């Protein structure tokens, strides 16, 4: 009863996507009667994240849940936690092999590159030849992996098709429309999250191309689900972050109390959300979905 777990993410404070996970942590901790502390590097600096893992280890919790944003950086600190006898579950980014290498119990999530690749294949099936990857967070390695995966899925070189838009929505919107204006033959767009998807929707609505280009995005938000319904967005890749928050807490609690744990990694995604299944997720998008 009352075990303490620490959840370490790589996202900066203001990344909205992680709210779903935070909310899942709240639900799981109250259901299981444990406390879960959510930690993240304020600016998203992964070296800071490693320090946080070390800090969590030093505070000797009943378990650590961490993402593998960069295997190189996190291998040492996480392995050290494992060696100190702290059960570790890895979630979100990273691969199953990396997770095993660290000595974690299991991995819940889906690697960024593979997700991008799957999206690319889907776009290819829709006939996309020339695309635009709207990267609102280019300094984050995962973002580039998604774009790269998408390009490889389409089987075209990435080249200049990824643009660095920054976070400001007006700038994102205007950069996207400038790009589309200068590259009129673009027939596919991939956005990396609500921060890039929502201004892109606005840009497409404004220049009348909404529904004309194949538009996919990562993650969900209220704006994205609305756009899926009206056909502006073809699909959203949902890795069901709720599970990435909820499951590890439940599993670790049971492991701590009864020593039981599933032996294999769990894939929380990729789930493709399209017009057909949007009704299910719409209401909870951004909170629990």
């Amino acid at each position, binding site marked *: 009863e009352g075990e303490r777990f620490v959840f370490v993410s790589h996202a900066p404070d*203001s990344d909205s996507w992680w709210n779903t996970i935070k909310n899942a942590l709240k639900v799981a901790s109250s259901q299981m009667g444990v406390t879960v502390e959510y930690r993240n590097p304020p600016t998203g600096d992964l070296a800071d994240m490693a320090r946080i893992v070390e800090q969590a280890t030093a505070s000797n919790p009943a378990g650590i849940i961490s993402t593998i944003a960069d295997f190189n950086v996190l291998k040492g600190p996480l392995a050290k936690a494992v060696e100190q006898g702290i059960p570790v579950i890895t979630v979100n980014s990273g691969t199953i092999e990396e997770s095993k290498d660290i000595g974690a119990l299991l991995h819940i999530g889906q690697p960024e590159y593979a997700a991008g690749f799957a999206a690319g294949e889907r776009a290819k099936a829709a006939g996309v030849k020339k695309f635009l990857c709207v990267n609102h967070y280019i300094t984050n390695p995962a973002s580039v992996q998604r774009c790269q995966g998408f390009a490889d899925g389409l089987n075209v070189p990435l080249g200049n098709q*990824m643009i660095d838009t920054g976070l400001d*929505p007006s700038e994102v*919107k205007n950069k996207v429309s400038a790009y589309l204006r200068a590259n009129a033959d673009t027939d596919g767009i991939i956005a990396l999250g609500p921060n890039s998807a929502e201004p892109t929707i606005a840009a497409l609505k404004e220049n*009348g191309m909404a529904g004309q280009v194949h538009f996919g995005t990562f993650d969900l938000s209220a704006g994205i689900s609305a756009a899926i319904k009206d056909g502006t967005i073809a699909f959203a890749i949902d890795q069901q972050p709720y599970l990435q928050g909820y499951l590890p807490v439940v599993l670790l609690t049971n492991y701590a109390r009864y020593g039981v744990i599933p032996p294999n990694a769990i894939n929380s995604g990729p789930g493709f959300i399209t017009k057909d299944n949007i009704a299910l997720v719409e209401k909870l998008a951004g909170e629990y979905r």
Partner: protein
Amino acid sequence: MTDERLMPVSSLRRAMIRPELGAICGVILVFAFFLMVAGDSGMFAPAGFQNWLVVSAQFAIIAVGACLLMIAGEFDLSVGSMIGFAGVIAAILTVQWGWPAWLAILVTFAVCIGLGAINGLLVIRTGLPSFIVTLAFLYILRGLTIWLSILTTRQTIIGGVREAAEGDWLAALFGGVIFKGFFQWLGDVGLIDTFTRGARAGQPVVEGVPMLIVWAIGLIIFGHWLLAKTRFGNWIFASGGDAQAARYVGVPVNRVKVLMFMFTAFCATVFAMCQVMEFGSAAADRGLLKEFEAIICVVIGGALLTGGYGSVIGAALGALIFGVVQQGLFFAGAESSLFRVFLGTILILAVIMNTYIRRLITGER
């Protein structure tokens, strides 16, 4: 007294040396450059026009505030955090608490201007450099923004503001466009292109003048008038040029500075409101690094970082340069990660040019 020891200076040269000269040259250069490399990319078609004008207008809104504050001898690193903060407050009030949009907007303005005043009062009372005080506020406001939005909505992005503000008279002042009819007519007579396909076929590609641009123009005119024409403007110059000297002759320096901090906060809030009303959502990470961008515009526009010298027109031109360069690189198809490299280079070149011009004006050495 030293007249006959002055070599002659041509009157043309004298007429030309003004704070914004560097920025004017910059604008000409930048336009010439992009006309050459991206002239046929649609950058100078009506829709392209609107594209970079909107971005420039955004910069201009915060640059006007930063400009007046900088001339008054202080600066504000919390502008970016203030933008995020204002947006989230307004969104929480309308969406979560269900207040009417006009009330939420007014309260947001009041809160933010109040925070600007606190910034100013801290600087004045403690005598600390504004760099430090506003750096602290950069962190405090950003932290509060994230904390508040998570506390009240369990999200750092709050959507649905547009729906909540639908039909509100005050919200319409920030979102939306004006002169719709005029542009429809322009489209009808073929002066600007119309959409040929999609849901909006037949409508002109430029729907109207976005309120963002209206605000920018309004603030530039107001700022220029205030600074160049009024008594208060003279006090702004005086406070920044030498606060002690200004105090001696009876200029209420403290009041001027606090008011300028408040005005900067006002501009940041206008920026935030326009953005929230246009996109319908507020997020805790809005406005990141905008404080630097505002300062860059102002400095490109010829203002002196240490205060007492500069012009609002210059700052507006600086914002125009910034916007055109940023968008132009996309039109020109340049590798977008090189944008920052360009920006840095332009900043240095512009400032060197401005310094040279200022030395000519003031005989400073």
